[in-house]
C-alpha cells in the first residue's frame, strides 16, 4: 500500500513528532512579522541530522516546500510558511551543545540551541557567544545564522557572520554538507544570512569570546534627537569603539516609562542614548573620560554612568523592553531595520518622521546608532485594513529613503516576505540574477523556503513564477 505524505513523515519521525492538527499548524502560521500568515501542511520535529536529511529528501520526492524554523522570532517573515503548504521543520528538539573547547574558544552546537543558553553554559569558563539580538532569550543559533542576526553589541563585535566558523546543513538536493571557514571557499559566509533558502542547518560551529574584564554603561538624555545623533557621530569619529550605542526617541521613552519596563528615563527628553564601554579595565578607564568630555560638549539634559552589574541592567531595562512596551501604542508593530551612514542619522530620522506623518502612522524609533541601524517602529491596528496598508507603504518609503541615503534596506532582520519588493531599491536585475544563480548552486529546485527574498513583480522570472503559484522557487 502506498503511503501518503503525512504517513511518510510519521515513518521517519514516529507519531509523537509529526503534527498536522489545525491548532498546531495555526501556532506556526507566522513569525514576528505580523502581516503575512499561512499555515504549513505539517510540522515535523526531528532530533537527528539523518532525520532532517530524510525529511528534506521526502519533500524533494513529493514536491513539497521546506521551511526550517528556529524559534520563529524573525521580524521579516523569513520563518512564516510559504503560501504553498510546506513541511515546517521545527528545530527545537536539536538544542544540544555537542562539543566545546575553552582554549580554542569554539563550540559546536545543534542549530536549535537557544542563543542565550550557549552563553550561560560557556560562561562558567569566562566565555560567551557575542551576537546578542534582542530575541536572544528565545531565538536559536540556527535562526540567527539564517538571518545573520545582529544586536546592540555588534557595533564592536560584529554580526553573526563574524562568529560562525562552520555549518553542517542539508542542502536543497538533500545532501549533507559540512562547510568550514578554514577549508575551501567561504561557503559558511554564503550560507550565513541566506534565510533558509539554501538548506536546513543542523549543526553550527561558533566562535566564543572572552567576557570583558570591565563594563561601564552611560545613560545620557538629550533635548533633541540631533544632539543624541551628533554625540554618536563624534564618539565613532574619535576612534572610541563602544560595545553598544543605542538611542530611544521620545515616543519610545513615553511608552517604556508607562509600562512594566519603566527604567526611570527622563520623560521630558527627546532622546536617550545608552553608551556601553567594555574590555580591559585600563582601556575602559581611559575611554570613559573621553566619552564624558564629548557628552558635556553636546549639552545633555542629564548623564549617569555605572559599572555595577545590577545598575547597568536597570539602565538597559527600558531598551530591552522597548518593543514590548510598544504594545501600549497599538495592537501591532512593524519593525523596520534599514541602515544609513551614521553621519546621516539625524537628517534621515527627520525625514522618517515626515513619512510617518504623511501616512498618518504612529512611528517611534529605538535603534543601534553606532552602526546606523535604524528601527523605525510603525504601530498599527492589524484589524484596520487601511491602517495596515498605510503602515506597509510607509515602511517601503522609509526603506527607499535609507537606500537613497547610501544605506541598506536591512541591517539585521533579513528580507523574508517583508522586504522582497524593496530588494529592487538596492539591486538591479543583473544583481538579482546573480543571486538566483547562486541559490541554484545550493537549491536547484527552489524547495527551501520559497516565495521569500526575491521580488515578485516586474520582469523577474522567479517573481512571476512565485506570484502565480508561490510554490517552489524554480
Amino acid at each position, binding site marked *: 500500500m502506498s503511503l501518503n505524505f503525512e504517513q511518510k513523515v510519521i515513518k521517519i519521525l514516529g507519531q509523537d513528532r509529526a503534527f498536522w492538527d489545525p491548532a498546531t499548524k495555526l501556532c506556526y502560521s507566522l513569525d514576528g512579522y505580523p502581516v503575512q500568515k499561512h499555515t504549513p501542511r505539517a510540522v515535523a520535529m526531528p532530533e537527528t541530522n539523518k532525520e532532517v536529511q530524510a525529511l528534506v529528501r521526502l519533500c524533494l520526492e513529493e514536491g513539497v516546500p521546506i521551511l526550517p524554523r528556529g524559534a520563529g522570532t524573525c521580524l521579516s517573515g523569513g520563518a512564516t510558511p510559504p503560501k504553498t503548504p510546506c513541511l515546517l521543520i521545527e528545530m527545537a528538539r536539536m538544542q544540544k551543545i555537542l562539543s566545546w573547547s575553552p582554549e580554542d574558544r569554539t563550540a559546536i552546537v545543534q542549530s536549535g540551541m537557544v542563543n542565550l543558553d550557549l552563553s550561560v553554559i560557556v560562561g562558567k569558563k569566562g566565555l560567551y557567544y557575542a551576537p546578542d539580538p534582542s530575541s536572544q532569550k528565545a531565538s536559536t543559533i540556527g535562526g540567527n545564522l539564517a538571518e545573520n542576526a545582529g544586536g546592540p553589541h555588534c557595533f564592536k563585535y560584529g554580526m553573526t*557572520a563574524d562568529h560562525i566558523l562552520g555549518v553542517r546543513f542539508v542542502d536543497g538536493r538533500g545532501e549533507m554538507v*559540512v562547510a568550514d571557514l578554514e577549508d575551501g*571557499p567561504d561557503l559558511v559566509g554564503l550560507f550565513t544570512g541566506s534565510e533558509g533558502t539554501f538548506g536546513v542547518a543542523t549543526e553550527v560551529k561558533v566562535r566564543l569570546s572572552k567576557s570583558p574584564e570591565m563594563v561601564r554603561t552611560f545613560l545620557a538624555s538629550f533635548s533633541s534627537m540631533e544632539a543624541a545623533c551628533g554625540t554618536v557621530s563624534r564618539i565613532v569619529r574619535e576612534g572610541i569603539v563602544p560595545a553598544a550605542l543605542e538611542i530611544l526617541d521620545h515616543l519610545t521613552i513615553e511608552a517604556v516609562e508607562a509600562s512594566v519596563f519603566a527604567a526611570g528615563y527622563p520623560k521630558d527628553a527627546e532622546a536617550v542614548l545608552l553608551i556601553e564601554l567594555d574590555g580591559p579595565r585600563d582601556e575602559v578607564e581611559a575611554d570613559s573620560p573621553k566619552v564624558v568630555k564629548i557628552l558635556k560638549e553636546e549639552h545633555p539634559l542629564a548623564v549617569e554612568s555605572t559599572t555595577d552589574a545590577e545598575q547597568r541592567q536597570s539602565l538597559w531595562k527600558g531598551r530591552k523592553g522597548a518593543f514590548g512596551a510598544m504594545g501600549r501604542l497599538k495592537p501591532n508593530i512593524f519593525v523596520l531595520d534599514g541602515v544609513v551612514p551614521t553621519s546621516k542619522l539625524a537628517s534621515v530620522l527627520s525625514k522618517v518622521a515626515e513619512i510617518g506623518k504623511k501616512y498618518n502612522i504612529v512611528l517611534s524609533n529605538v535603534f543601534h546608532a553606532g552602526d546606523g541601524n535604524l528601527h523605525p517602529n510603525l504601530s498599527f491596528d492589524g484589524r484596520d485594513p487601511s491602517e495596515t496598508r498605510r503602515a506597509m507603504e510607509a515602511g517601503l518609503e522609509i526603506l527607499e529613503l535609507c537606500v537613497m541615503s547610501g544605506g541598506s534596506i536591512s541591517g539585521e532582520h533579513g528580507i523574508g516576505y517583508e522586504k522582497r519588493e524593496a530588494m529592487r531599491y538596492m539591486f538591479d536585475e543583473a544583481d538579482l540574477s*546573480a543571486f538566483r544563480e547562486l541559490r541554484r548552486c545550493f537549491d536547484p529546485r527552489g524547495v527551501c523556503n520559497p516565495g521569500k527574498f526575491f521580488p515578485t513583480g516586474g520582469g523577474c522570472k522567479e517573481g512571476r513564477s512565485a506570484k502565480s503559484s508561490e510554490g517552489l522557487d524554480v
Partner: protein
Amino acid sequence: MFEHRPQTDKEVVELLSGIHEQGILLRCGGHASSRGVSPGKTQAILNLSDMNKITRLDPNDLTCGVQAGVLLEDLEEALAPHGLAFESGPFLGHRSIGGILGEAPPASRSFDRGRLRSQLIGILGVDGRGRRFHAGGQVVKNVAGYDLCKLFVGSGGAYFVGLEFQLRLVALPARIGLLQSEPLGLDDGIIQWRELRNTLPTPRALDLVLEGSHCHIEVLLGGSAAYVESQIRHTGFKVKLEGMDAWKGVRGREAIANKESSPPNLFRGHCPPSQLSDWIGQTPIHGRIHYQGAFEWDRLPGGERPMGAIVHPTQREGEQVQGNPPSDPGACRIAMELKRTFAGGLMPQRLSFLTRISRKGAPQEIHP
C-alpha cells in the same frame, strides 16, 4: 599571450563577454604569494592594475571604496591623515587591494573581526561570462542580498572578477606597540604563547615565530597608552616597534617569500591552538603561527595531523597551484557548481581539481 589592461568596468564586461571560452588569468598587481597568478595554460591576462582609483573615502562612517588595482600603500597614505587604517594585515604595501582580498593570505592581525572577510562590505563584480553585478553596500551593517563578498575573499578570482570594493575601516589606536620575547625553546615558546592567548585581553596580533629549534613570540598591542603600558608589564617583553611601524611590522612568510628570489616552500593552514604542541613536536619549522591557529610554515610535521587541522597546498616548489579545495564532498560539490555557474573561462587553474572531479564523478574522488 595577450595582456588586457582595462580602465573601466565596461571594458572588463566587454572583454569577458567576448572571450569567456578562453582561459583568463586575473592579475591585479601580480604579487600573490600563493602563485594565484602564475600563467599556467591560460590564453590571456586580465590586468586590473590600471583600475587604481580610491572612489570614495568617508572618514565619518569609517568606510571607503577602492578599485581593484589600488595599492595598499596608496590606500594607507590616503587614510593616514584621518587616523584610519585597514584592519586586516599586515600585507606588503605594494600589493593591490584586489590581490589581497582575492588571495586572503593569513596575517598576524587577520583574526576574529580582523579577518579580511569582515572588511569587505560591498563588491562590484563581473563573472567569467561578462555579467556585471553588485552585492553588499556602503554601510558596515547590511544583510540585504546574498553575501557574494564572502565568495570572493580568498577565492583567487576563481569565480568572478572583483572590480571595486567597499571597505570597512578602523580608527588607529592611540598607541601601538610591537613587543618581542627573548628567544625561547620550542616547548617553552608554545606554552607561553598558549598562556598569552588566554591572559592577554585583546591583542591585535599574537604570533609564535618559529625559527627551527628556537622560536620567539611577537605581540601587537593597540589601545590607550595606559592599556598598552599595562600589557607590556604583563608580558615582560621588550618593545620592538611603535606607531605605524609596529602596525605594519608583523609580516608573515609573505614578506620573506617576496624578498627572496626563490620562494621557499609554503604550507598554509589552520590548527586548533590546543593541539599545536602535540603536532609540531620537535620539527624544526620556520614560519609563523597566528593568534587563532592559522599558520605559514616551510615544512609540515611528520606525525599524525590532529583532528581539525587543515593544510592548504598553496605553494610548493615546482608545483602548479590547484586552489584551496574543501575536504567535505558536499562542500566540494557546491564549490564545483559555483565554479560552473560563474567562472566561464576565468582562472581555469584555480579550483581546477573540480573539473577533474566532475569528469570522474564519484564523490570519493573529490578529495584531491
